[in-house]
C-alpha cells in the first residue's frame, strides 16, 4: 500500500490540475499521477485560501463570530450562520420564538435550492455544457433578489443572530417566494429535459466514480454524496432542529453510488426543498422575530455542539467556553473536507476525463474545505 501511494514507477506522468493563484476564489489544486490515461493517484493540495477562521472566531464575541462563517461555505451562508446561532442558543439555553424558527427554515431551504442550482450549472459547465449555467443562474437570481430584499445581501447575509433573525421578513417576502415556487416548478422540468435525459450526459455520469455505502461511512461523507450511496444521513430527519419535525418531506436516497446517483439526489432534493417551503410559507406564525437577549452574551463554562444539514452535508459547530464573552475554542466540522477526502478513493483506476464528473458531483466548495 505504502509503495503504491508513495512512489511513482517509470513511465508515470504527474500532472497538476486546477488553478492555484491565490487571488482566484475556490482554488483546488490536484496533483494527479497518471499511467497513460488511467488515474493512479489523486492528491488534493489544500491551504490556498486558508483564512484560519476558527482562530479568528476565538477573538470575536458570540454575536460577531457568526458573520465569519458566511465565508466558509459561501453558497449555504444562511445554514452556516444557522448552525452557529443554534450552538450559541444551546449554551444560553435560549428558546427562540416560533416565527423566527419558521423564517430560519424557509431561508435555509431557499439557500439549499440556490446552492444546488449553482452546483447544477457549474457541474454541467465542467462537463462541457454551457447553456445550463445560465439557466441555473436565472432562477438563482430570483432567490438572490428575495434574499436581498429581506436580509440586505445576496451571498453573505449574516441574517441569523443568537435569539432569532436580525430583521423581520420583508412584507413582499411571502408573495415573492410563492411566485418563485410557481416559476421553479416549471423550470425544474427544463433541467431534466436539458441535462438529465441527455444521452451524452448520462454516458459520462453513469458507472463513474463508484462509492460504496461502507466507504461513504468510513470516509465520513455526508449529505447528497453519502445519500447517493444509500446511506441514510439527513440531519433534518434524524436529529431535527427548529421546525423540521413538523414538516413532511422525504429523505432522498439513491442506491447507485455512482456520479449519476449523486446527481439525482441533488435534483430531487431541490423538489423536496420546494415541498418544505410550500408547507411553511403560508403558516408563518405571528410574533417576535427575535428573543430578548442580553447586550453582551456570555456562555456558561462548558462544551456545546450543534449540527445542521447544509447543502453539502453535515456541518458541526463545536464551541468550548470558559465562561467569557469570547469562545475559548471553536471547531467547525465542514462537510466539504470529508467529501473531498473520498475523491482519491473513487478516482483510482478511472480515466482522467471522468475526474471532472466525479469532482462535479461531490459538489466541492473550496472555502468550506480550507476554512
Amino acid at each position, binding site marked *: 500500500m505504502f509503495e503504491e501511494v508513495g512512489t511513482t514507477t517509470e513511465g508515470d506522468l504527474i500532472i497538476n490540475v486546477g488553478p492555484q493563484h491565490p487571488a482566484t476564489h475556490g482554488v483546488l489544486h490536484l496533483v494527479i499521477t497518471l499511467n497513460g490515461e488511467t488515474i493512479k493517484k489523486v492528491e488534493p493540495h489544500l491551504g490556498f485560501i486558508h483564512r484560519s477562521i476558527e482562530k479568528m472566531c476565538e477573538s*470575536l464575541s458570540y*454575536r*460577531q*463570530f457568526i*458573520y*465569519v462563517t458566511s465565508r466558509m461555505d459561501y453558497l449555504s451562508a444562511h445554514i452556516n450562520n444557522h448552525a452557529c446561532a443554534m450552538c450559541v442558543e444551546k449554551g444560553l439555553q435560549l428558546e427562540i420564538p416560533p416565527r423566527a424558527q419558521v423564517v430560519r427554515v424557509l431561508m435555509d431551504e431557499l439557500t439549499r435550492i440556490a446552492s444546488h442550482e449553482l452546483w447544477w450549472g457549474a457541474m454541467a459547465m465542467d462537463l462541457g455544457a454551457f*447553456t445550463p449555467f445560465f*439557466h441555473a443562474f*436565472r432562477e438563482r*437570481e430570483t432567490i438572490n433578489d428575495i434574499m*436581498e*430584499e*429581506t*436580509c*440586505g*445581501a445576496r451571498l*453573505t447575509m*449574516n441574517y441569523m*443572530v443568537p435569539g432569532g433573525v*436580525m*430583521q423581520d421578513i*420583508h412584507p413582499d417576502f411571502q408573495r415573492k417566494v410563492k411566485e418563485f415556487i410557481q416559476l421553479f416548478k416549471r423550470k425544474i422540468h*427544463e433541467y431534466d*429535459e*436539458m*441535462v438529465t*435525459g*441527455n*444521452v*451524452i450526459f448520462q454516458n459520462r455520469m453513469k458507472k463513474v466514480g463508484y462509492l460504496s455505502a461502507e466507504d461513504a461511512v468510513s470516509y465520513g461523507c455526508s449529505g447528497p454524496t453519502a445519500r447517493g450511496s444509500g446511506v441514510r444521513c439527513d440531519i433534518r430527519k434524524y436529529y431535527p432542529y427548529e421546525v423540521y419535525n413538523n414538516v413532511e418531506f422525504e429523505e432522498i436516497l439513491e442506491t447507485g453510488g455512482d456520479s449519476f446517483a449523486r446527481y439525482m439526489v441533488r435534483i430531487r432534493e431541490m423538489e423536496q426543498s420546494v415541498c418544505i417551503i410550500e408547507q411553511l410559507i403560508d403558516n408563518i406564525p405571528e410574533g417576535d422575530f427575535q428573543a430578548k437577549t442580553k447586550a453582551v452574551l456570555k456562555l456558561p463554562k462548558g462544551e456545546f455542539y450543534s449540527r445542521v444539514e447544509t447543502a453539502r452535508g453535515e456541518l458541526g459547530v463545536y464551541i468550548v467556553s470558559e465562561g467569557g464573552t469570547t469562545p475559548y475554542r471553536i471547531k467547525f466540522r465542514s462537510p466539504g473536507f470529508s467529501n473531498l477526502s473520498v475523491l482519491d478513493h473513487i478516482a483510482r483506476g478511472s480515466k482522467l476525463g471522468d475526474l471532472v464528473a466525479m469532482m462535479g458531483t461531490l459538489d466541492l466548495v473550496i472555502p468550506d474545505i480550507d476554512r
Partner: protein
Amino acid sequence: MFITKYIKEVYLGIKSLLVGMKRTGYYFTHHKEIITQQYPDNRDTLNLPERFKGEVVMPHDEKNEHRCTGCQACELACPNGTIKVITQSVLLADGRKKKAIDKLVYHLELCTMCNLCVVACPSDAIVMAQTFEHSVFDRTKLTKILNNPGSKIMDGIE
C-alpha cells in the same frame, strides 16, 4: 441483434439531444423571458431594496444635526475595527460638560456589511445606504468621516 441495439441507441441519442435543443430554441425565439440587465446603462432605473447593505452612513437633517451620542456601541459591536468613535467633551449652555462625538471614522475598506453596528446603535444614528459602486483610485478615500463638519447632536437625544 447488435445492429438493432446500435440503431436504437443512435435514435434515442438524437431524440434526447433534440429535446434539449428544443429548450434552447424556445428561449432563442422568446426574447421576453430574457432577464439580462444592461447594468452601467440602467443606473437611473436601478432600484435596490431598502435593506440593501451598501455602506454605513449617518443621516443628517436639514439643520445639520445627527442622532449620534458617541456611546461607542457600534465600535464595540464591529468585528473588524471598522468604526472608530472619537469623542470630545462640549460645554453646554448651563455650564455642564457633556460627551459628544468629534469624529466618527469609518473604514469602508475593512467593512464586511454585517449590519451589526446598525443593529447595536441605540439611537438609530447610523444606517445602511444603498450605494454599491465603491471603487476609487486612492485607498485613503475609503476612510470616511461620517458626521458632517460643524454638525451637532439633535435636541432630545441622550
